[in-house]
């Protein structure tokens, strides 16, 4: 779902507003998927494992940018590009936040590093929050 959501939300940017709707739907679907998984797997550890695997590309990119590991390769600048592209499904939601800068960098840049674990939390939360019979 994530890869097709990247494509759909990016194409949705052609029709401003639609990208926002798709971004909200994406978050709802991730939550629903988390609920579905908690019923199906019924094991929070496995659900956390699934979330970690799902967000592994984002985590690797975010950590390499944060630790400066990306600068060890010639195409360093592409890591942050790829991280932004990975987070495309939720970018419309942070694009509506009024802009301000912290230490010369815009707020949205810091969101990149928060969103990767946050998406995993949205997926995992139903497993800890809902009782199976109610979900």
């Amino acid at each position, binding site marked *: 779902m994530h890869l*097709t959501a990247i*494509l759909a939300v990016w*194409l949705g940017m052609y029709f*401003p507003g639609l990208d926002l709707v798709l971004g909200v739907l994406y978050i709802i679907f991730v939550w629903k998927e988390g609920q579905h998984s908690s019923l199906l797997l019924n094991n929070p550890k496995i659900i956390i494992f699934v979330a970690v695997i799902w967000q592994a590309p984002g985590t690797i990119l975010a950590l390499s940018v944060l630790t400066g590991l990306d600068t060890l390769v010639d195409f360093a600048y592409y890591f942050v*590009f790829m991280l932004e592209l990975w987070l495309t499904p939720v*970018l419309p939601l942070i694009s509506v936040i009024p802009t301000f800068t912290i230490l010369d960098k815009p707020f949205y840049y810091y969101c990149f590093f928060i969103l990767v674990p946050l998406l995993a939390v949205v997926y995992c939360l139903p497993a800890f929050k809902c009782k199976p019979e109610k979900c």
Partner: protein
Amino acid sequence: MEWLQKAKRGAFNLLLFPLMALMLTTLIFIDNQHLFAGSEESVIYTYLNSFADGEIGSGYGPVSTDYTPRLNLEPGDIVLGGWPHCAYGRFSHAGIYVGNNKVLEGYVDYGLSVQDLSHYLEYNELCLLRVQASPDVKEKAVAYALGHQGQMFYPAAFKQGDRFWNCTKIIWEAYKLQGIELDPINDLWMAPQSLCASPNVKIIYEKGI
């Protein structure tokens, strides 16, 4: 029957985004038919040709050490820089000169931001464009661009909307709002190369052809 309802819901969740992508691709294609009817100036063709040659991204190469004369720029002038092997044309980056040796440009990590002009001297390809407009119009275009500092940079930003920008779109939009069209072929995206093709600009300096 509960399982059937759940299965249906699951299928809807799974299929919505692929179907939306397919539908939106079709709509965008229909809306841009003029670009697929032999207009090889479009950035789409540039991308596809570069991709076929195995080139992606903004290019790479050694920092230029060529002599560049003192650049006599006026606020509102457009600065283009390019590396060899750039996938989207001769130039990979664009900025609008805002005065005092500063340009407004876009980067993923800085968003739309004001940076020093000097880094353009490192590019292998450099081009300076002067927009054919009155100083008043250029001033307004610069003010518009400066008013968007900190906004989000997205490399594949479409021309529509005002929440996602790339380095060229902000310049195009700033002048478009003043009645000056810098995209003569009404392309799908704005790439730095597109600005050169506009009849509303004059090349005032060029290096690395």
